[in-house]
């Protein structure tokens, strides 16, 4: 691997700027003449807009412009769309309601944008925003998805009768029913997956700049996928054609899914810049982030899993209601369908699976992908059911899982996915060893003597990453392809730039991507720069989400490196008068194998650009591009074991040990991969113990709209983690990478809840397992 190559624990290149305060985030950008925007937002969950009076706001000090929905519409700006078409089981297309970037006639959730105020200072914009008078006619609101489906519920979009967006299914219902009817034991549960608010620590921000001289727009934005933002804003929102719109996502302070989507604010800031003639910057305050960033999860599910007399799973039936909020966000439709139901086989041989999903409009913020996106919901469901079934059947949770593990690959599940490689026994064994599973009863006894209830819980997760083969996702309704692009530019003096369509917002691409190049060409890490996040520099890309940067983004780089290497070898063979097949590249030298004849890398690069002596017919230059389209998803998997101690007097849960054994395939940089797992687990622990979005049901007001109301995991809420990896390389991409970004958040919530329910001896517990809920569950038992 070399000291800087694939597999090396290299410290990150990007850290120097971050630890010295020199990171450059959107709010750090300053453009001459730049002014500040504040949005006027609906204080009501559901209301019609009778009138908007901007006159007094416009007269306030420093105000440059106040703009509203009708003006936006008159300029032809389009509605925000969902980019993944799902058909209901009756064949009808999903019922997408109109979402105007600035509301025109109706507001549908607290925080819905109604107007933008642009002023000289942030303070002046805020003052003026308070002076915009909106005359609302309040309507009854509904925030709960099940209630929204009931007769007589408030109707949110005329396009979606009964608030039902689609009623979709995967698998054969009758087969699954038959399997359950013939089962020796059926475990039935109602599972709630609590609604979460992503909370990247950098709030979303946008700086729109219209350059009149060039008739050209530039947007600096907190995006995980600037190219997709440009494409969607051009093709669907009519902001500007692609050749007149540059989108830059500089340093971005965390995403977790919430910065995938194209939100109203980006569109409106660009448009407002042209309307007002000044560059317009908007930065969300934290309350706006809580109100308006796309939320995650929010499923309610009835599940039945059947076992035969030998404890083998015979069938699974799942009926889910998913809350999509007030509008359909960009990928909202695929999260509770193709990213959820397709993972319901987990790590297990399940012959029959049927999943029905109804998605529902409510008067809440839009819901879309949040770290894991559908896969945490599937995993929580399965792993709570497996643990519960083990308890009901009187067998050990590990044995029940072992008995049902898939052991041969490739494995075709009944729910589309074809698992390419894995070894679930290996990660289970590794986790049980690290956790000293066998020693648990003694630890429980010891805790009991201290007056604490100790419990242990496990979770064996699988996820589908490396999104995704374009043709496959196209056939399932995706409006885009999910390849990735890369360009490897070897400069004349031998240094290298890698241009990638992936985007790093914490993942360390500047280091790991450079490691791949250093590994291949033997050049120093410092001579490789990674360029990303700017549509003027990188031609096209699909961005970073779904743990796709390694499996898809790096694969594109590898493919471009193949071409660079091939051309460099041709040049070297010509210069060294050797056979092309005998040329090898090692340690920064291009050599004739088995001889002492070699050229420094620099000289080959220079030769490509001087072009004085190239093979006949060869074009000068050394720069290659690749668009890599994956052939399959990748399937990271692993086993997590959590141990908790509950204080029976207070209901407070302490996580006393957390073990993760993950199979991510080939790992480029273990330091970074471990960091991803730590962070993911903590987000999962947050969901299990602390985080829960609460809307006041009758008014639709968001109760948890600040860090004083929504409990973020703090350092004292988690222990240090014991993480390790087992490796089965993915056969589906050149380096065997599977992806690691979401595993922690997917695998940890069921492990935590399985541990708490084990400790308290009551299985009836919903997330977040707050002290009050745990205390109550203890006493109900």
């Amino acid at each position, binding site marked *: 691997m070399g000291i800087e190559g694939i597999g090396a624990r290299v410290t990150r290149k990007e850290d120097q700027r971050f630890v*010295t305060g020199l990171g450059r985030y959107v709010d750090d950008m300053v453009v001459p003449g730049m002014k500040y925007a504040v949005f006027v937002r609906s204080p009501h969950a559901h209301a019609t807009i009778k009138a908007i009076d901007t006159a007094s706001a416009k007269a306030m000090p420093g105000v440059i412009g106040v703009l509203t929905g009708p003006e936006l519409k008159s300029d032809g700006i389009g509605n925000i769309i969902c980019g993944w078409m799902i058909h209901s089981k009756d064949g009808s297309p999903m019922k997408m309601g109109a979402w105007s970037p600035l509301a025109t006639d109706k507001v549908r959730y607290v925080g819905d944008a109604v107007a933008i105020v642009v002023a000289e200072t942030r303070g002046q914009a805020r003052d003026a925003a308070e002076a915009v008078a909106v005359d609302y006619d309040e309507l009854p609101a509904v925030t709960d998805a099940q209630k929204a489906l009931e007769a007589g519920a408030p109707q949110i979009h005329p396009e979606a009768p009964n608030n039902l967006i689609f009623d979709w299914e995967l698998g054969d219902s009758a087969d699954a029913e038959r399997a359950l009817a013939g089962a020796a034991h059926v475990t039935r549960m109602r599972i709630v997956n609590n609604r979460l608010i992503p909370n990247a620590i950098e709030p979303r921000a946008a700086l729109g700049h219209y350059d009149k001289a060039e008739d050209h727009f530039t947007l600096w934005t907190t995006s995980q996928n600037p190219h997709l933002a440009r494409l969607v804003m051009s093709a669907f929102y009519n902001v500007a054609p692609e050749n007149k719109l540059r989108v830059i996502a500089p340093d971005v302070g965390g995403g977790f899914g919430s910065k995938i989507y194209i939100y109203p604010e980006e569109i409106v800031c660009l448009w407002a810049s042209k309307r007002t003639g000044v560059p317009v910057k908007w930065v969300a305050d934290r309350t706006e982030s809580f109100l308006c960033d796309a939320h995650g999860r929010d499923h309610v599910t009835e599940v039945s899993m059947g076992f035969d007399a030998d404890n083998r799973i015979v069938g699974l039936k799942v009926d889910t209601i998913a809350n999509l909020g007030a509008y359909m966000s960009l990928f909202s439709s695929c999260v509770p369908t193709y990213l959820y139901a397709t993972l319901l086989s987990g790590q297990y041989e399940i012959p029959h699976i049927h999943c029905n999903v109804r998605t529902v409009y409510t008067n809440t913020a839009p819901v879309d992908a949040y770290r894991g996106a559908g896969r945490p919901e599937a995993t929580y469901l399965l792993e709570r059911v497996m643990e519960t079934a083990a308890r009901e059947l009187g067998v050990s949770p590990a044995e029940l899982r072992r008995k049902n593990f898939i052991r041969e690959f490739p494995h075709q599940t009944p729910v589309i996915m074809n698992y390419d490689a894995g070894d679930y026994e290996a990660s289970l064994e590794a986790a049980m060893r690290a956790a000293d599973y066998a020693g648990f009863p003694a630890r429980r006894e010891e805790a009991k003597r201290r007056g604490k209830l100790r419990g242990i819980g496990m979770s064996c997760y699988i996820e589908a990453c490396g999104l995704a083969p374009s043709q496959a996702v196209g056939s399932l309704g995706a409006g885009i392809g999910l390849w990735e692009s890369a360009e490897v530019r070897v400069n004349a003096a031998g240094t290298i730039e890698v241009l990638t369509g992936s985007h790093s917002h914490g993942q360390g691409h500047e280091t790991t991507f450079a490691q791949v190049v250093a590994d291949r060409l033997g050049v120093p890490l410092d001579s490789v720069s990674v360029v990303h996040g700017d549509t003027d520099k990188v031609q096209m890309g699909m961005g970073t989400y779904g743990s796709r940067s390694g499996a898809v983004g790096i694969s594109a780089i590898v493919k471009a490196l193949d071409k660079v290497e091939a051309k460099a070898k041709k040049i070297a063979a010509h210069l060294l008068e050797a056979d092309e097949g005998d040329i090898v590249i090692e340690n920064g030298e291009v050599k004739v194998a088995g001889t002492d004849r070699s050229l420094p890398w620099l000289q080959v690069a220079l030769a490509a650009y001087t072009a004085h002596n190239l093979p006949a017919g060869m074009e000068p230059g050394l720069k290659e591009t690749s668009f890599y389209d994956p052939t399959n998803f990748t399937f990271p998997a692993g086993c997590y074991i959590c141990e908790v101690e509950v204080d029976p007097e207070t209901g407070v849960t302490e996580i006393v040990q957390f073990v993760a054994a993950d199979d991510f395939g080939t790992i480029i940089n273990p330091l970074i991969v471990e960091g991803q797992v730590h962070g993911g687990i903590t987000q999962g622990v947050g969901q299990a113990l602390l985080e829960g979005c609460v809307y006041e049901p009758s008014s639709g007001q968001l109760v948890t709209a*600040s860090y*004083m109301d929504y409990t973020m995991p703090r350092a004292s809420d988690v222990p240090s983690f014991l993480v390790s990896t087992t490796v089965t390389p993915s056969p589906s991409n050149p380096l065997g990478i599977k992806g690691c970004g979401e595993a922690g958040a997917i695998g940890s919530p069921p492990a935590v809840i399985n541990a708490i329910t084990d400790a308290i001896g009551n299985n009836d517990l919903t997330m977040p397992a707050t002290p009050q809920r745990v205390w109550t569950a203890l006493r109900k038992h």
Partner: protein
Amino acid sequence: MADISMVINGREVRGSVEDRMLLVHFLRESQGLTGTHVGCDTSQCGACVVHVDGKAVKSCTMLAAQASGCEVVTIEGLAKDGQLHPVQAAFKEHHGLQCGFCTPGMVMSAVDMIRRHPAGLDEKTVRAELEGNICRCTGYHNIVKAIMAASEEMSGKAQAA
């Protein structure tokens, strides 16, 4: 408007600011010191921590005018002569950061924490002391590791000196 003056990272600066201007906005917008970040509105996240007269302060909770006459150190002023402060170096070495947004506040809090615990820090104390700094990326594991390593290194250096 208020006329203010303060020493920021060893340099004396003067300014005329709106009475309501927060110290963080003075640093970021008037002084161009954008390493200090704003992550919330309620003084919870700690991305804005700077040192005022030697103490860690959330600069979103202090008016610029209140800091007049004070000595302020921001993340930009921590490294000396091109050498990272031991806490900065430890965050880099132990991968105590991912997106980097909470990092300046974390580092400034950590420096203050280590200074207040000259006898050294155990894991429990570090975790409790980080109550006012939120990180969404790292799960704190490597932040805690970095702070303990820096604390050890700094106390070692103090003993040697």
